[in-house]
């Protein structure tokens, strides 16, 4: 019985084999017959996009032109090359007025049109994004907000457009935290400020005559942790932005510095010298309990969580100079990952955990560098000379860092691959210690 049942199966297999082979040959033949052109590189240029000035109706706040904000946002990324308005052949505000041929002639790849109108104390923006070559609409939306929040509306549209064109979430609605330093009456004044990513709408959240360092955003974007010397010694505070409530979470003897939020927002990596030597600890924000994560006679500092929340990177001079080490878990042995140059410090992970960004010293100058952890390939991203404090945008496409511009410190945004740079509008005095917020939900 078993053989009689197996025989048809065997025959079916024998018959099926040539059929499958024939199909494979046919597929291979047909695949071979058709020409396939492989394109592995793009233009290497910013994508030409036309952001047509939005039509406006009603009483709108002066100076906050929505389409201008969008165009600047897209340009800041270094990924887009918006067309100047004076080169446009027409200024359509809806698809009915769009002549795609004109935009193709201008070499534009995408087209954004829309209008903004005042509706009582609110403004409404209606916009459409088109693929010029395909002559098809990629995006269309109508949004509204309060009149005072019109920049947020512009950033929201920017995020939507960016995501439609790149596949990555936009970060134009995120915030920046940074510290400015100026002098008043011969005495320094430090301000912890929070602004839009374009530097606008900055607001001071803390002002002190003592240094403020290392601001760090909580994962929900509602809190900032930072180091303040306001008591004469370094303390770590957690600052609830909405309520303005500040809490000192680390006031241990000696050094309290370099806070970094864990991905779950429950703990901070901090550097303490309470044992006499600078080590990295995990501080539970709620319980204030400490877990020592490094234990070495050298200085271990600037702990930064891996996005998975398991491992972390830190800076240690245990090999004689500051280098970056990684512990893949709290109990794992640290491994050194930087070997180029005598100074590599202040590491931050990219959101996907594939890269670290850090300060790298070369020939007496400090640059922002990027290393691909899997390969160890290191890439210098900046050409300025005194670069420090890199902070990565939550979509991983941009980073902000502090550098010197003349005698002042400024904040500069570059693409994560080291592309075009965009310097934020100058605030008063030196600007340093930037921190890019997560995407605010």
């Amino acid at each position, binding site marked *: 019985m078993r053989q009689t049942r197996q025989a048809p199966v065997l025959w079916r297999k024998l018959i099926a084999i040539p059929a499958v082979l024939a199909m494979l040959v046919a597929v291979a033949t047909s695949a071979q017959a*058709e020409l396939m*052109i492989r394109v592995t590189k*793009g233009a290497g240029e910013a994508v030409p996009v036309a952001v047509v000035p939005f039509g406006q109706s009603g009483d709108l706040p002066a100076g906050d032109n929505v389409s201008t904000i969008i165009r600047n946002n897209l340009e800041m990324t270094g990924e887009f090359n918006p067309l100047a308005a004076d080169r446009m052949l027409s200024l359509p505000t809806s698809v009915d007025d769009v002549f795609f041929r004109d935009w193709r002639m201008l070499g534009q790849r995408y087209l954004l049109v829309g209008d903004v109108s005042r509706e009582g104390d609110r403004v409404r923006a209606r916009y459409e994004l088109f*693929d010029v070559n395909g002559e098809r609409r990629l995006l269309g939306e109508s949004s509204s907000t309060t009149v005072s929040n019109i920049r947020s509306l512009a950033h929201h549209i920017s995020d939507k457009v960016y995501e439609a064109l790149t*596949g990555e979430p936009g970060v134009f609605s995120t915030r920046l935290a940074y510290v400015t330093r100026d002098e008043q009456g011969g005495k320094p004044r430090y301000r912890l400020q929070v602004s839009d990513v374009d530097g606008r709408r900055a607001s001071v959240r803390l002002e002190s005559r003592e240094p403020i360092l290392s601001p760090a955003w909580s994962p929900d974007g509602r809190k900032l942790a930072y180091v303040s010397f306001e008591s004469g010694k370094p303390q770590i505070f957690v600052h609830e932005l909405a309520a303005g409530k500040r809490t000192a979470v680390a006031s241990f003897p000696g050094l309290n510095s370099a806070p970094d939020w864990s991905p779950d927002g429950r703990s901070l990596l901090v550097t303490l010298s309470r044992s006499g030597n600078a080590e990295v600890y995990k501080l539970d924000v709620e319980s204030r309990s400490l877990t020592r994560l490094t234990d070495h006679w050298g200085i271990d500092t600037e702990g930064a969580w891996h996005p998975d929340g398991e491992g972390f990177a830190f800076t240690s001079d245990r090999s004689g100079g500051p280098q970056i080490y990684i512990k893949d878990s709290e109990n794992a042995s640290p491994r050194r990952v930087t070997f180029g140059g005598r100074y590599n410090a202040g590491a931050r992970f990219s959101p996907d955990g594939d890269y670290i960004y850090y300060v790298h010293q070369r020939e007496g100058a400090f640059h922002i560098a990027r290393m691909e952890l899997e390969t160890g390939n290191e890439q210098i991203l900046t050409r300025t000379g005194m670069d420090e404090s890199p902070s990565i945008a939550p979509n991983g496409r941009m980073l902000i860092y502090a550098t010197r511009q003349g005698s002042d410190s400024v904040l500069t945004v570059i693409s994560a691959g080291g592309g075009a740079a965009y310097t934020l509008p100058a605030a008063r005095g030196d600007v340093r210690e930037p921190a890019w917020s997560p995407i605010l939900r």
Partner: protein
Amino acid sequence: MSPVILSLLLHGAIVVITLVSWHWITPMEEPPEPSISARLVSPETVQPPETTSPPPQPEPEPEPEPEQPDPVEEAQQREAEQQRIQQEREREEARQREQERQEQKRLEQEAAAAREREQKAREAEEAAREKARAEAEEQARQKAEEERKAREEAERKAEQERRAQEEAERRAEEERKRQEQQRREEEERKRQEAERQRQEQARREREQQLEQLAQEAEAARLAEERRREAAAAARARENQMRNEKSRYESLIRDALHRAWYPPSSAREGMSVILRLTLLPSGELQSVEVVEGSGNRAFDNSAISAARGINRYPLPDSRDTFDRYFRQFTIRFEPEV
């Protein structure tokens, strides 16, 4: 000799003897003489009635004879008959002699008168007889001679006929042989002719075959030459098409390279395959996603790149266009 032949010979001899005896013993019907005269008649003088001997007849075919009486008895009977006849004759003669004696006297007178005449007549008769005898002898001689001649003639004729027959036979034989020879020769000739014709036919067929083979070979050679020329032309065309393909593939790749703006979300390993259909003018007729990357922005960037080329660079050759560029696929896969 066989008994039959001996019997035939014996009967023949008896018949001859009988016939001879018949003539010898049969009284001649003498025409009535005007006078009575007697004369001694010897058997030798008795001439058989003048007959012409028939020409020698061919030996009659032996026939079965009826039962013959005993020859001896027959001879005795014949002898008795002869004796009887002799006696009859003798009696007749005696009677005659009586008559003659009676009349002898009368006759003697007349005879004496007549004797002279008779003498004269005898003499004349003798002369005549002599003459006749001579004539007869001459005739006999002539006859014999004629017979001899006839015989000889017959023999000669027979010989001649025999010879003629032999000659005829010989000739017939010769004729037969000749005919046979002729027939054989004819047959041989025919055979040779047939053979010649066969060979000729075979030769012609061979020649035709050779001719056909030659023609076929020539045709094959020409076909092969044409095929080679066509193959060479096809190869040349193929090479040209490949060169054109490579050239325009490179031009299209460059154009796509310039037209493609991969989004920031593009990662190494991402891939989108598009199928393009072009018009001979180089315009894009259609583009479809054969295999997407899963990233809409990435796919859109590729589609936009494909649509971003106003006119694709294409070879002049319609064949090359139809073969390679009327429809082709593009794989966008960034190498970061």
